[in-house]
């Protein structure tokens, strides 16, 4: 990773390295929490909070943490922040807590966070890591919102819980979109759109699987081996 200006670190997460549509990280919350705009927004912010905090702490400790145990250390730090965010949301925004359910705890294993810790925070300064966290967090939130707006407006005929009379009265909702298959469908279509706009430049070489998977670090390419073995 060559020298990057602070601005480009912040902005790259928005589109060029958008975690959801380009890096294809954090698929699970992207699909599961985007049935409503409220849920997606809450999930985006919660993830961003964890991402920024863990990025800061991990980059601050990057010289202190021995290489051999870095993954367990990262996981402890991330799980710690997730739990703190979880408790704060349960205390102050109980409705959101009920909406997100288990997916809040599962931020721990969100590929984005461990992925950024491994790919960026473990190698860069605190300031840059914080910017990276904010950028990625905003990119993640925007992506989730895009998914959720499509799914809630077209699927349930409402926006952030407010019914849109025009859609509901004329029966223009596609309830499938608000359900599980709709999540996969909308996600697939959106990635195709990003592909089209960028003419496939961004995602073209990124074979989904090993590179995007945070376990790649811990499994030392075991994943890649399997793929080769099978082919």
């Amino acid at each position, binding site marked *: 990773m060559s020298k990057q200006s602070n601005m480009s670190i912040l902005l790259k997460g928005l589109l060029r390295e958008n975690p959801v549509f380009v890096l294809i990280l954090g698929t699970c919350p992207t699909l599961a929490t985007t049935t409503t705009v409220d849920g997606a927004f809450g999930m985006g912010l919660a993830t961003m909070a964890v991402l920024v905090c863990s990025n800061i702490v991990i980059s601050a*400790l990057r010289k*202190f*943490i*021995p290489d*051999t*145990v870095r993954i*367990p*250390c990262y996981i*402890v*730090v991330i*799980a*710690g922040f997730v*739990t*703190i965010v979880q*408790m*704060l949301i*349960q*205390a*102050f925004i*109980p409705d959101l807590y009920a909406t997100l359910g288990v997916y809040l705890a599962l931020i721990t294993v969100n590929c984005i966070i461990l992925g950024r810790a491994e790919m960026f925070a473990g190698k860069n300064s605190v300031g840059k890591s914080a910017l990276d966290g904010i950028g990625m967090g905003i990119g993640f939130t925007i992506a989730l919102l895009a998914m959720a707006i499509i799914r809630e407006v077209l699927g349930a005929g409402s926006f952030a819980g407010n019914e849109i009379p025009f859609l509901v009265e004329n029966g223009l909702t596609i309830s499938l979109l608000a359900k599980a298959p709709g999540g996969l469908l909308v996600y697939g279509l959106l990635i195709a759109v990003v592909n089209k706009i960028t003419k496939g430049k961004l995602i073209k070489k990124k074979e989904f699987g090993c590179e995007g998977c945070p376990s790649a670090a811990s499994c030392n390419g075991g994943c890649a081996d399997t793929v080769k073995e099978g082919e």
Partner: protein
Amino acid sequence: MKNYIKSIISLTVICAVVAVALAATNYVTAPIIEKNAGAAANEALLVVMPDGGDFTAVDLTQYSLPESVVEAYNASNGGSVVKLTATGYGPDMIIMCGVNADGVVTGAVCLSSNETLGVEKTYGDTLKDATIDTIDGIATVSGATMTTENYRNAVKDAINTAIILGGGSADIRTPEQILADNLATALPAGEGAFTEVFICEKLENVSALYSADNGAGFVYVTTVNDEEIFVGVDANGAVVSEVADDVKANIEANAKIMLKSSLKEVDITKYADMPTNVDKAYKTNSGNYVLEIHASGFGINGDHYYNPSGEYIYIKIALTDKGEIITCQTIKQTETDGIGSVCADKEFYSQFNGKDESNYKDIDAITGATITTNGYKSGVGKAIEAVKIMEGVA
């Protein structure tokens, strides 16, 4: 080796710091979370008691309460909110009911039900403002009599619970206990062991008849001023309970009929047109008929009385020579447990009593078991037909 130790130390330190941070956050948020949970639970209870204030859960083991009570809460305004299950004929429902300090229902809602009618969603509103004295007078919903009756009984249990929690006393005996108590009071000589008698004679104002297992006598159930009273009769037909003279005269007249009653089997094979669902027929010396029939229930396809695999519902039915039903009783059935099996409940089959050819179909169907109900009705219809054949008027 040095790296090894360093790894362990750094991991341990990180774990320790994270643990401290978590404990600190928990210290701040735990009371708020607890308060939120309490507020949410409180809100649910406020639905049935808007001015209830705060609620505290009651330890149910401290009181003897109706069996249907699942949870109970004392409100800060002196009332109670009770959560109960309503079971029996029809669907199982969970009902939450608020009762204020004066024993007046402040609200009732059905929290869950496997009912499909929908009446349980609104019936609670009609029970609002009811008290223990007025609740039995509140009308049930026609077409859903059993469901609404269960609902009403559950709310009645809730009122009794609230009275008990408020320090009062209430009658919380189950219907079976009440029946046993009434029988024992009416005929002490029966020593508490009674069996219901199948009434095959047309009796004046008698809804049920029990005989003492030790042969000491009978208990007749009759209705006076809309109230059921239990009248004890000794083995010779003399009334032993303290009752008004006209009641006494009526019961003794009935007892006289019953004592004389005897059955004689009729050979049904000599009637060519006899419906095939009639298994046995008896005639009483007063000219009534007692038929043992079977009816097709759920799981029996095609022609009602052709049975490829399923089991029938067996029914005993007494009719007058004019085809009027005196008593109808389910003897044996293997219908779907909890749905069609309801045809074995007295609340169901006693609906046929007093009906005749013109109106025997006007009974409440069993919820979710239309086929069972229709099969049952059709069996009863054939019994009426059989009487006409035996009387030679068909």
